[in-house]
């Protein structure tokens, strides 16, 4: 089923999203490259929305016709020295993979985020070296690959090589002015 990408929207999470949230976050394939544990109940979905999504500095539900099918999170670092940097994360329900939805949502999120957080200069995304799908998403969304960081961190107990991507506020301005493809 082809999704009309113009139906994709981003909005804050609501408690009412719990059923839809459980649908995608209850899937091991969805959480495989995230630090999240796969959700096992609607109550856990409700708790996650209440305790994590709603208080989050910038997390949005990716919606089709206002129904939640994923998330995009941008987390500014804390501390005086690091507050110009932020970390990007995204996940789309497995059944909607391969249609350009995550790429579209990523582009929308980056545009909105730099407006909401003008002091952030550098947005980073760390993607597992084996997660080719997510690498394509961030590349098509305009992130630049900087390098592979070997044995950088543990994700779900396994030591991972992570590809580091960045999107600078100056890339964003250049793109907006039509200077970048």
């Amino acid at each position, binding site marked *: 089923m082809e999704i009309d990408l113009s139906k994709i929207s981003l909005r804050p999470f609501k408690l009412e999203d719990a059923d839809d949230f459980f649908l995608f976050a209850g899937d091991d394939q969805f959480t495989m490259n995230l630090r999240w544990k796969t959700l096992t109940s609607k109550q856990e979905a409700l708790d996650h929305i209440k305790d994590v999504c709603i208080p989050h500095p910038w997390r949005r539900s990716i919606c089709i016709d206002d129904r939640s099918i994923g998330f995009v999170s941008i987390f500014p670092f804390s501390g005086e020295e690091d507050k110009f940097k932020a970390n990007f994360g995204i996940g789309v329900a497995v059944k909607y993979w391969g249609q350009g939805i995550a790429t579209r949502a990523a582009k929308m999120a980056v545009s909105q985020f730099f407006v909401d957080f003008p002091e952030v200069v550098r947005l980073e995304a760390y993607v597992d070296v084996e997660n080719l799908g997510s690498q394509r998403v961030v590349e098509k969304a305009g992130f630049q690959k900087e*390098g592979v960081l*070997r044995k950088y961190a543990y994700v779900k107990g396994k030591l991972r090589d992570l590809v580091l991507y960045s999107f600078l506020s100056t890339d964003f301005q250049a793109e907006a002015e039509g200077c970048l493809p």
Partner: protein
Amino acid sequence: MEDTSVVQLHQNKPEDECPNLSLRPLDVSDIDAFMVWATDEKVARFCTWEPYTNKEDGLSFIKNTVLPHPWLRAICVDDRPIGAISVTSNSGNDKCRGELGYVLASKYWGRGIATRAVGMVVETIFDEWPHLERLEALVDVENLGSQRVLEKAGFQREGVLRKYVVLKGRSRDRVMFSLLSTDHRPT
């Protein structure tokens, strides 16, 4: 009292100009030696700190940062500190990773001392910290001398991280280098 691990390298190569390089803990009694490099703007150029202007600030730094540091050593020539080298530690999902940093009095630059000091750390840190998988270092794109030190010490250049730090009000690109415990001792 920090464990006194003294690593000594004796002059055994004809091209070595520098005798008796060693690493040992840095203490408040080293304040005068510390001030030699800490007040030098050439040394501070790519560092987050401004050159020190008074001894009290130097003593505060030693008491508050050096003494409680998980791993910091003075780089010594004939047991006199001419610089320092350190490795940070992380916890949780990041405990596999430590960041290497070093600083050397400018009068001792260009003699391979930093490279040897890095080598001495590499020889010991993976044994002292068995949980350490990755030693990394972030070097300013314009700091070619320090990039050469790491390359000679066997680190791999992984990429340029754009606007990775804000240094003295300006965004700086940093080059990421790493050495894995398996690079050092292939299993």
